[in-house]
């Protein structure tokens, strides 16, 4: 009962000073809408960046490079003995890189519940030759179906067909710019020369166009069996095993788990691409800093308005206290005003933020795979925006309302 009187009084205060209330609400509205817009925009940018990156990047990569293997026979056989050792004729043996028994590893990886796709690859540098032209590039020997599952590679093939690699034993799919540079089309023949001096001719059965120019200029796909033949490796060989998991932000535990099972290097995308992670975090910091600055300014505005209101109404506060309202009642009267301003401002801010974001999303921006400025909405941004908006107003309203609660009625009424 008493609570509802306080709210009644608060609402009379709010409605009788319309412009003041309006300005305070607009402050919150602006802060909240900026929070939503900034975060949706940054999310859009991050998501675009990620989509680009993950078109060629797996969440986890398993590979084998011998330079990381160091074997000390003394330490591993006798860890802390007084024995004198005499080693004759010590040699450094060249370990071959790559994974010889890839099938066993793949079936181990597939058993993990977090894993959604696994693909083997053989990657190596080659020269592409056609007539007198010779271009340095890379060949990826891939498993068609698995590769497509990881990277949707079949979607970037613009001429010919991804699955042609399955049917044509000597088929190759090359990047668009590479094809242009060599002056080749689908069904042309192309010569590939490996670093070991092996040379073979392939038929172009497809041309792809990704969103990364570098790749279009240098890359070609072979079926993994054709690639094995080309570099003379056994039928279970792979240079990389690529893994996608359910939650790509959560690679650490998976890498740890696989590390216990698999004796090769295991690398998450975060380790391999620190600049991606850093870029995303920096953009998030900017978004949060900007929106909090705006909320802070709005908070100061509300603090000022509340302070002014309370100075203006000090006589009325004294009367309320004289007729029996407690300090707590007075505080709740002014805090509910702040809360109402926060909620209303938050509500309008959500609408405004959504509209601003939609508008920005219409602005043309023809770079890379984009057509307009990117916007990506997340429910949590909207919720947090309102929470922060209301919190800011409550904090801004708290100090003035405490001051109001402490008004000594007799000093005011005595005049």
């Amino acid at each position, binding site marked *: *009962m*008493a609570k*509802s*009187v306080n709210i*009644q*009084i608060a609402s*009379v*205060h709010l409605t*009788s000073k319309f412009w003041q209330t309006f300005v305070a609400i607009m402050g919150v509205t602006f802060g909240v809408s900026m929070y939503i817009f900034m975060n949706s925009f940054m999310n859009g940018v991050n998501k675009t960046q990620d989509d680009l990156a993950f078109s060629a990047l797996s969440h986890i990569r398993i590979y084998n490079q011998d330079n990381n293997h160091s074997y000390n026979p003394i330490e591993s056989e006798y860890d802390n003995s007084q024995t004198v050792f005499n080693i004759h004729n010590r040699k450094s043996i060249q370990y071959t890189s790559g994974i010889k028994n890839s099938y066993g590893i793949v079936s181990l990886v597939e058993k993990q519940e977090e894993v959604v796709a696994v693909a083997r690859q053989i990657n190596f540098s080659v020269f592409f030759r056609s007539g007198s032209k010779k271009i340095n590039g890379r060949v990826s020997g891939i498993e068609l179906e698995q590769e497509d599952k990881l990277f949707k590679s079949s979607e970037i093939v613009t001429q010919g067909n991804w699955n042609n690699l399955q049917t044509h034993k000597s088929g190759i799919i090359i990047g668009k710019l590479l094809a242009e540079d060599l002056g080749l089309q689908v069904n042309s023949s192309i010569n590939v020369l490996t670093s070991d001096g092996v040379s073979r001719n392939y038929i172009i059965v497809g041309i792809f166009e990704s969103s990364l120019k570098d790749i279009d200029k240098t890359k070609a796909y072979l079926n993994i069996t054709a690639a094995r033949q080309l570099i003379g490796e056994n039928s279970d060989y792979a240079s990389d095993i690529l893994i996608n998991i359910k939650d790509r932000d959560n690679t650490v535990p998976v890498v740890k788990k696989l590390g216990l099972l698999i004796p090769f290097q295991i690398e998450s995308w975060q380790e391999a691409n620190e600049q991606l992670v850093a870029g995303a975090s920096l953009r998030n910091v900017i978004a949060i800093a900007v929106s909090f600055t705006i909320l802070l300014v709005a908070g100061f505005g509300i603090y000022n308005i509340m302070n002014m209101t309370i100075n203006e109404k000090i*006589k*009325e506060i*004294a*009367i*309320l*206290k*004289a*007729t*029996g*309202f*407690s*300090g*707590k*009642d007075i505080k709740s009267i002014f805090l509910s005003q702040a809360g109402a301003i926060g909620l209303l401002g938050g509500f309008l801010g959500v609408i405004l933020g959504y509209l601003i974001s939609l508008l920005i999303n219409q602005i043309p921006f023809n770079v890379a795979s984009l057509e307009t400025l990117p916007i990506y909405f997340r429910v949590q941004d909207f919720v947090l925006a309102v929470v922060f908006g209301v919190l800011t107003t409550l904090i801004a309203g708290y100090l003035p309302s405490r001051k109001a609660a402490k008004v000594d*009625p*007799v000093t005011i*009424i*005595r*005049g």
Partner: protein
Amino acid sequence: MENKTSLKIRNLVKYFHEPETFQVLKGVSFEVKKGEFLSIVGKSGSGKSTLLYVLSTMDTDYEGTLQINGDLLTGKTQNQLAAFRNEHIGFVFQFHYLLPEFSCLQNVMLPALKLGKYSTKEIEHKAYESLRLLDIEGQALKSANKLSGGQQQRVAIARALINNPSIIMTDEPTGNLDSKNTEAVLDIFRGLAKENGQTIICVTHDKDFANNTDRTIEMADGLII
């Protein structure tokens, strides 16, 4: 019932420290019976309003003791006193303060809404009754700052009556009223004292008004004479 003590003060001493230390009340003691209609008179500046603020529990910066209805109020917290005032004391200030953004009706209803003993409908009904008693119900829905001084004073009196307080304290309740309305207020107070047993304490300059009360206390220089 007649002889129950409504209010009792012992040795009230009060100082003002601004601009210089100055003793306003110099040891005031008296008792008021339940249902008594008491008036306090005295020269301007003799300390009548100051005394009334102490009696009303709003001013807690004094020495001595204050008891109302047998409760010792000296030393209670501000919030306890606010709740006590709400239920037991009706107060009309010397400069009849109303809340300007609220209607007269709302002004009268607020202390009752705060008390929360009755439903809004009952309170509204009672507020209209109070306003009618003071012949001002025609202005009920007008906002308080649109009334004349005398009208505001009558609304303030109506507000003081709303919670059926055991004591009604007024500071110059008829200062802005013509003789007809003064007469009416006097009648109302007398009726409340007689019929409801409510104690009335009035500070006044009006000799006729004082002569019509049960008892008159005269103050001079912070003392009762």
